[in-house]
């Protein structure tokens, strides 16, 4: 039995997150009655520590190294997305405390669950074995279910959590069943490399295809791609708003990272990609359906939280284009997906941060009409929200524009995907309509009732940081793509 403790240093970000989560749980039990503000700072310290560990490990990760008998890998792609997840957790921990205090459910467990979910995401992205993938997904999802339902007095929160939990459990069933079929047809392989080496023999059995698609269905549930998106609007609407941002950004990004890695290694064989039944054509159709349905449904929403939920579904569609392009052999598609994930994460967190900011205990102000007059009352926040919405729509000075630009350019390199790019561009234009509805309401209409938002220094700091990140991603996209690009060439 060989075990080298130095291997653990490669996973310092994950271990720091878990350790800090346990510490918060213990500290919470001793903080009976007192304010939980200190616990949020513990969580923030954990995120900062994890970020430092990621930066420290960056130089050593130029070449991918696998650990623990091929269960986990450390490479640039994993570290890039680790950084994104930890940043998402950090921002969530900045947005959450004032919101939780205002709504009256400030528990230390909340902060611990955010850290545990992040640790699960980190594991998902490092997984090179279906078992470690399963463990990562479950760690992430279980914490996300709890976070969705932690608003104990809200019926919507409970409803969202139950729906999310049931659909999530269903998806896990698909994942495990798919794993079993892959295991059986490949002759006992569960590691990505092992599966890839056995594909020629395994494809003799239709069960292998079934297993492959079961696994993709499970991941489709997690990214809320059509037709596996039904849970998303209710869960996103019911969850406490900072959690919605965290779910829409982090959980989705983690599942996309898993899809990119899985399809890029285990199921990368040409036998599985091309062809009428290959995953490239299946995912291309799903991408078109996801974008279109998400956008069409978002147009009809008056509730800003639901609007952003449907918009996050449509963003899963754009991202699937990149996954398909990557499968068809476009080298620039993978960094484009990663850049899009990073810019989408910051933008979404920021937008939900503003939604969390605007309401208070008695009045959530979730409807587009409720946003009237914010532009004159609070110009700074209105400007930040405008920035986030423009970035979601893909308008130039923002990260969202370059995210779409890189993604569509990568897809244009493959002649089979031109139709998909046309669909995506039309969809982007449609989406600008409903994003601008909120902007119009903020600037061009007079307020009907006084604004009493949830104030908090950390919330302001979080909004400032996300706004800066969105602008920086729009000004220096090249640098970030280079970070992401050092992955794809491997």
């Amino acid at each position, binding site marked *: *039995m060989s*075990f080298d403790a130095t291997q653990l240093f490669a996973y310092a970000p994950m271990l720091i997150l878990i350790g800090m989560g*346990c510490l918060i*749980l*213990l500290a*919470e*039990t*001793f903080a009976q009655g007192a304010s939980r503000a200190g616990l949020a700072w513990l969580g923030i310290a954990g995120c900062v520590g994890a970020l430092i560990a990621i930066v420290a490990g960056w130089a050593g990760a130029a070449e991918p190294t696998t650990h623990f008998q091929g269960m986990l890998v450390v490479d640039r792609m994993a570290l890039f997305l680790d950084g994104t997840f930890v940043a998402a957790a950090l921002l969530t921990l900045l947005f959450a405390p004032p919101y939780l205090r205002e709504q009256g459910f400030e528990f230390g467990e909340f902060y611990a669950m955010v850290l545990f979910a992040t640790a699960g995401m980190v594991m998902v992205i490092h997984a090179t074995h279906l078992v470690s993938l399963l463990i990562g997904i479950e760690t992430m999802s279980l914490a996300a279910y709890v976070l969705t339902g932690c608003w104990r007095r809200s019926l919507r929160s409970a409803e969202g959590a139950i729906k999310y939990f049931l659909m999530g459990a269903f998806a896990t069933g698909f994942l495990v069943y798919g794993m079993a079929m892959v295991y059986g047809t490949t002759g006992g392989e569960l590691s990505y490399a092992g599966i890839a080496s056995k594909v020629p023999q395994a494809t003799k059995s239709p069960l292998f295809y079934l297993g492959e698609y079961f696994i993709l269905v499970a991941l489709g549930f997690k990214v809320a791609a059509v037709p596996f998106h039904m849970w998303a609007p209710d869960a996103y609407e019911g969850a406490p708003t900072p959690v919605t941002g965290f779910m829409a950004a982090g959980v989705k990004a983690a599942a996309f990272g898993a899809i990119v890695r899985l399809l890029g290694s285990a199921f990368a064989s040409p036998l599985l990609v091309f062809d009428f039944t290959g995953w490239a054509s299946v995912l291309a159709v799903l991408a078109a359906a996801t974008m279109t349905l998400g956008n069409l449904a978002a147009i009809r929403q008056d509730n800003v939280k639901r609007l952003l939920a449907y918009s996050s579904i449509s963003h899963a569609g754009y991202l699937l284009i990149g996954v398909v392009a990557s499968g068809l052999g476009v080298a620039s598609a993978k960094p484009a997906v990663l850049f899009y994930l990073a810019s989408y994460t910051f933008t979404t967190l920021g937008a939900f941060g503003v939604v969390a900011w605007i309401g208070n205990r008695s009045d959530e102000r979730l409807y587009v009409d409720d946003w009237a007059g914010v532009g004159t009352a609070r110009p700074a926040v209105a400007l930040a929200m405008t920035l986030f919405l423009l970035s979601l729509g893909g308008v130039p000075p923002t990260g969202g524009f370059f995210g779409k630009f890189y993604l569509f350019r990568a897809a244009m390199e493959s002649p089979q995907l031109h139709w998909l790019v046309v669909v995506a561009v039309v969809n982007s234009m449609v989406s600008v309509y409903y994003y601008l509805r909120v902007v119009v309401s903020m600037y061009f209409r007079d307020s009907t009732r006084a604004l009493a938002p949830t104030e908090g220094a950390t919330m302001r700091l979080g909004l400032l940081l996300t706004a800066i990140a969105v602008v920086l991603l729009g000004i220096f996209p090249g640098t970030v793509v280079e970070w992401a690009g050092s992955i794809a060439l491997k």
Partner: protein
Amino acid sequence: MILGGVGFAFALTAAAKYLGPSRPSAAKDYPYECGSDVIGSPRARFEVKFYQVAIVFLVFDIETAFLYPWALKYRALSCLGQVDLQTRVCTGGVSFFGLGEILVFMGILIVALAYVWRKRAVGWE
């Protein structure tokens, strides 16, 4: 053969239905035959304490379940070289992997125990 078997089963059921005397009574139609009266709907609300106990039980039950395979493999986990199958002697040095591993595992569960203890979830009241 199969037809004969199925036919025989059907024949017996039909015989019981048509030949046997049928005298239904209120007591016979009662859903429970053990003699106790129904005291309410089975869809009562259970106290949340039951779930709490079940969850806490599950955690520590799984801990015990994990300790068995660990104990069986402890010699191999603590040996840097190979364990001789006949003499059960370890060649090579001693590794603290097995011990460290289980200590980490128990440590995480002790955090859980401390948490439920402090949250007063272990007592019934």
